[in-house]
């Protein structure tokens, strides 16, 4: 899980072009949107693209978005659960 979260942080910084954020600056449980890392709705779409490109995962139910994308940890848990279910 730690390794996956570290990889996700680097991929988020790269994919979202967060040039003033270092991957290690993102907390495992830090909220990614609003008052947390300050991501917006376009960033959410980019994370969906990231999951598809790097992990082959498509979000089947958009209503799950806020729950899945809450933090790096929740995304990592979603990826792990998806890979285990395969």
């Amino acid at each position: 899980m730690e390794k996956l979260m570290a990889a996700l942080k680097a991929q988020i910084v790269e994919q979202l072009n967060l040039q003033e954020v270092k991957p290690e600056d993102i907390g495992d449980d830090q909220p990614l949107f609003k008052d947390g890392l300050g991501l917006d709705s376009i960033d959410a779409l980019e994370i969906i693209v990231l999951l598809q490109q790097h992990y082959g995962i498509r979000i089947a139910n958009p209503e799950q978005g806020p729950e899945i994308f809450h933090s790096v940890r929740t995304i990592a848990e979603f990826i792990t659960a998806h890979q285990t279910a395969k």
Partner: protein
Amino acid sequence: MYNGEAYITGSCVIRKNRVYRDGTLLWETPQAQELQEFLRAGYDQFSGQYPKFHKMDPLSKLGWLAAEVLLKDAPLNNYPPESIGLILANKSASLDTDLRYFDTVKDIASPALFVYTLANIVMGEISIRHGFKGENAFFTADAFDPEFMVGYISQLFLENAVSACLCGWVEVMGPAYEVILYKVERSSGGLAFNADNLQKAVSF
């Protein structure tokens, strides 16, 4: 009664990796530096503390940076946001970004690029940064046309649709780019707003 007179109270030109304000060279980088690196260095030089900049396309970065240079020491704080307009023009509209976006469509379309596939997004970025809420329009033409610009904007002043505005030319296509941005205000203290003076203000 207001007669529609307006004045050029500032100008910013960005071309050939040089930034001029009011005709004076403020800053430059080596000619060989590529546009994206130049823009990043310009951001560090004139602004910072605005991470959204890094997500913008080159067109928005250029317009945003010129507005930053123009307004940094002389913001348009004396006018209601609803009375500050933005009138811009260029030759290539958003084609530079359209092509980049088209490249991503072959794989997975990029939402972050898609949102910049309209030329007038640059005006949105400037408006968000400076709180402008007035009239705006973006025109495409083969070349910067001072006569047209003065005619259109003078009418806005005459109708009291604006009390101040930023206007000019923001063009980018691949490595070629040029920004000519003017600040125009109702209050006196600058060159009279006419086509001759628009050209004089940036002839150097």
